[in-house]
């Protein structure tokens, strides 16, 4: 089972509850904005502690409220591509890419660095600072940074948001490549079920 998620989390007045079991290589989590999709991703990545529940991915338990299991983010090995990318502003693109890669050096890389840079089309950006990149470039670098950290699973938060149709199509093609070539379960969050239809083996609604 790729994703086995059962969690409850209260933020202010809003109660977020999700039960999800999926074997698909790419699972899409769809819901209107404000439904708590990003909160779910943060719980999975270990950035937020859910009030209760259990999260297991590819057979490993990351969180279990009853058993007292709560791995810190650095032990979960999430390849988290944030909607706002969160590239480190004081590091060049190459240093951003190397950040997780260096920390993961003991593990087996899932993809060769040069191959990934070519796949994402970011060779020309390596010496640039993040503040000089366009939205599409920023997102491609963020995907590269997450993949080079040898993640056990990928979390993609609205990967097509605020991109024009051409750029969104490029990113979509890249995600397809990653899905088909790398052995890593992907959870993709989107507000629009139309844009994930072609990609996802399984679509789950979050109310």
């Amino acid at each position, binding site marked *: 089972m790729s994703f086995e998620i059962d969690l409850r989390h209260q933020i202010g007045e809003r109660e977020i509850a999700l039960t999800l079991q999926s074997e698909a290589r790419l699972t899409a989590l769809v819901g209107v904005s404000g439904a708590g999709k990003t909160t779910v991703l943060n719980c999975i990545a*270990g*950035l937020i502690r859910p009030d209760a529940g259990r999260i297991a991915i590819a057979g490993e338990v990351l969180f279990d409220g009853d058993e007292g299991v709560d791995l810190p983010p*650095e032990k*979960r090995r999430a390849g988290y591509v944030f909607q706002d990318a969160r590239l*480190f502003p004081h590091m060049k693109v190459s240093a951003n890419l190397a*950040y997780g890669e260096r920390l993961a050096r003991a593990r087996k890389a899932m993809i060769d660095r040069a191959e990934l840079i070519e796949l994402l089309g970011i060779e020309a950006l390596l010496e640039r600072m993040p503040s000089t990149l366009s939205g599409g470039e920023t997102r491609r670098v963020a995907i590269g940074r997450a993949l080079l950290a040898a993640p056990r699973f990928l979390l993609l938060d609205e990967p097509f948001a605020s991109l024009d149709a051409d750029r969104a199509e490029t990113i979509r093609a890249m995600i397809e490549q990653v899905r088909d070539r790398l052995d890593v379960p992907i959870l993709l969050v989107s507000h629009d079920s139309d844009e994930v239809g072609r990609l996802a083996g399984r679509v789950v609604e979050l109310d």
Partner: protein
Amino acid sequence: MLGLSDMEWAIVGLSLKVSLVAVLATLPIAYALAWLLARRNFPGRLVLDALVHLPLVVPPVVTGWLLLILFGRSGPIGGWLENSFGLTLVFNWTGAALAAAVMALPLMVRAMRLSIEAVDRRLVGAARTLGASPWRAFVTITLPLSMPGIAAGAMLGFARSLGEFGATITFASNIVGETRTLPLAIYSGLQLPGAEEQVARLAIISILLSLAALLASEVLVRRSAGGRAHVL
């Protein structure tokens, strides 16, 4: 050299030594306090915040008096330092440095705290998901991104130390060659008839030193932040 007499050089040298030691010794303490106040919620945080800021609002002579009680030869900390390490702070340049450090601390903490608060915590979260331990995320993200605040805090602390008067004269006294820094030398000159020229020269030196410290830190911060941050 530069038209300064030996005596003036001695005063300038002592002032620089006292201020430099005060700032360097306070830097890690100030940064740790700034980080605690910016990033952690704990019981007594408000009290710690108030204590750090106390030297800013209490009359300096009172701060000096408190230092005398705590760090004097018969004081609880001063007595222990003297018995254990043979270290005397009163009537000593190290005492002047301690007084300057305590007075500079609030300014340093304020500048550093602002810059730590300005570092996006979500970047720290991103570093953690990429495999960084909390300590590593701090060293690679929070620390470099708050560097302008560290430089600004160090500069403010240095300038404050150069000008420190009340706590120093109360705690470390006004001893030629030992604790008579620039402000104390200017004060002493004002007590003597016919030393007007001496006072004016020392005052000009004092202004130039402060200006140099200000400009140096501005250049430093601009360069380290790639022109995106400034002190002034």
